């Protein structure tokens, strides 16, 4: 076991992927010599060469479009989108081409492309550097959408994503890049939790708290605070946003009877809405309260001096937990 930052764990995972598969490539803006603006690809170009770790021109549609071409040729590109708010120029290639090619080709074509996107706020950034666009991709058939929350998971999930024959949109919580956790870099990938499975981070009996990416840490802290007040919160890290691991979610909610979903993205038409609908369908008679959602507001992401009010925090999560007990 080694204590690694989330950024370093991704770096180690990518290194492993490049070693394991000669067809794996890394491409993006500043991923080579600089090692990425968050240093996730630090040192990889030096060790694997410019043909496999490619500094691209500055155009996101071009990054994804050429990655599709490389995948058609048999490669496994891992694209880095530098910031969440810069993915939109690539959305056409992702939604209209990457997601649909297997379907269009009746299974003749696989596009094993990974698109890494640093996401979320909390770093005091200027506009377009703090967004949570995951639901755009979760709404698109043909994509797998995942979010890592800590270093240990990041290390295995990025390797699983590269191995996956479907396109994977891989969200990385940028305000957690420098958080350290124990990582077993020697562990075999085969025994790891599957990429599409949720993980019970903390057992509990009174209410189920669902989170992913940057909100997992907030949720664990909220559970610790609630415990002192005698309330037992079960925290589940969704990990996979599409597909959703409804079996794990429903099993928990059927036990607790209460559920709160939290994410940084706006609540309206967010992932929480889909989860609430599905829980209602699957657990209706066992629910003690409606599923509540805690997330961003129906505003654009605010200037950073306001983000502490925009981002769901421990108090807002616990406020929602309290409200589920008021029914």
């Amino acid at each position, binding site marked *: 076991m080694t204590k690694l930052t989330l950024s370093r764990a991704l770096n180690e995972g990518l290194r492993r992927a490049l070693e394991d598969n000669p067809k794996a*490539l890394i491409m993006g803006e500043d991923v080579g010599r600089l090692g990425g603006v968050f240093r996730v690809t630090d040192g990889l170009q030096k060790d694997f060469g410019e*043909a*496999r770790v490619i500094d*691209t*021109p500055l*155009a996101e*549609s*071009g990054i*994804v*479009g*050429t*990655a*599709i*071409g*490389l*995948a*058609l*040729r*048999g*490669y496994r590109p891992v694209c880095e989108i530098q910031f969440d708010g810069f993915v939109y*120029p690539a959305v*056409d*290639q992702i939604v*209209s*081409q990457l997601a*649909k*090619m*297997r*379907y*269009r*080709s*009746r*299974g*003749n*074509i*696989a596009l094993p492309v990974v698109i890494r996107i640093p996401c979320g706020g909390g770093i005091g950034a200027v506009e377009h550097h703090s967004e949570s666009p995951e639901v755009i991709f979760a709404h698109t*058939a*043909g994509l*797998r959408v995942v979010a890592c929350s800590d270093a240990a998971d990041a290390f295995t999930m990025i390797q699983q994503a590269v191995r*996956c*024959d*479907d396109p994977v949109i891989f969200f990385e919580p940028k305000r957690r890049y420098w958080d350290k956790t124990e990582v077993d870099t020697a562990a075999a990938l085969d025994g790891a939790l599957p990429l*599409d499975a949720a993980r019970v981070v903390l057992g509990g009996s009174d209410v189920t708290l669902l989170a992913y990416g940057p909100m997992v840490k907030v949720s664990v802290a909220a559970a610790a605070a609630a415990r002192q007040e005698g309330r037992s919160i079960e925290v589940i890290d969704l990990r996979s946003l*599409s*597909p*959703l*691991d*409804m*079996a794990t979610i429903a099993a928990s909610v059927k036990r607790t009877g209460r559920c709160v979903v939290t994410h940084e993205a706006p609540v309206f038409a967010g992932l929480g809405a889909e989860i609430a609908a599905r829980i209602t369908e699957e657990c209706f008679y066992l629910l003690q309260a409606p599923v509540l959602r805690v997330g961003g507001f129906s505003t654009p992401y605010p200037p950073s001096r306001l983000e502490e009010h925009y981002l769901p925090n421990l108090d807002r999560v616990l406020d929602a937990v309290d409200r589920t007990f008021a029914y």
Partner: protein
Amino acid sequence: MQGHDAGAADLVQLLTPEGERRDHPDYPLELPADEIKALYRDLVLVRRFDTEAVALQRHGELGIWASLLGQEAAQIGSGRAIGPRDMVFPTYREHGVAWCRGVDPVRLLGLFRGTSHGGWDPAERGFHLYTIVIGSQTLHATGYAMGIQRDGAVGSGEDGEAVIAYFGDGATSQGDVNEAFIWASVFNAPVVFFCQNNQWAISEPLERQSRIPLYRRAAGFGFPGIRVDGNDVLACLAVTRKALQAAREGQGPTLIEAYTYRMGAHTTTDDPTRYRLASELETWKLKDPIERVKAYLARSGAADTSFFNDIEAEADQLGARLREACRAMPDPEPLSLFDNVYADPHPILDAERAQFAAYLDSFDDAEPGGPGPAGTRPGAELAGGEAGR
């Protein structure tokens, strides 16, 4: 705008509209008569294929058709220049190139009939699926070419591989096409950009896309651009051959602007009389891509009446085969709509498939002759569920 006129000076032409051979110092072409006759056969057969497809749409057998009428030489000339190991990235109008790659025309009809989004194996044919979003495929082509570089399959003479990306004049305004030019240029990728400038992007004339001739755009990106008479099958063959060979040998991309004309509507749903003059069409009819080859073959004595009659008979057979095959094409099974979304199991989708299968099965108990599932009652496609209750 004057800048778009295809003056003789900057237009590569090896066969005039009157059917006279011309030489070009940069593009010498020695073709045996048999090969020119084979090109003529291609031209006639793809035009017949296209004509049949328009008719099938009019008869309700196809939902829509994008006609290649007028662009046969650009497609057959370039298409016959492509080597067996090369890869093609087409738009949705490259029926002539598909023909050259051996894609069964019936597969193309299926796409426009609505039985599939693309029914051929791109790797097997060296011909990618049709791309409908304008310009997207130019990036795929460039990425594929970067893969050829990584495979060491460039610059190796006979074994070299290259890519050709097709697009139209309208697509040159797209960001993706410009990004593809940049990528291909800075990575020196083995890709040929083949732009069929057919003068119209549905109703928008070329002047709405560019102030300068399109081939000159290449200079700004740092690679050669060449304008060829797109209605001259020999010139298109020679120019494309040279550009592909340059790409295979590691000399990087070329932009070819095939100067041609869309003789038909954009698609069968379009009405060009609303935006262009009939006189323009008449002018271009005089430059017809097939007539000039016929005139050359007849005048040179390379082909006689029986040759032309035989080709016509073959075209008739092709037409009959296509009509029959199109009408016989079955609708896909309802549950096939869930197939091939993901490589690995997907619990949400799998649950939807199971639910829909159970829903369809519920009609098995319905009274004989009563309303059934989708499609058994006119206009009931979406209301089938209600009908069964």
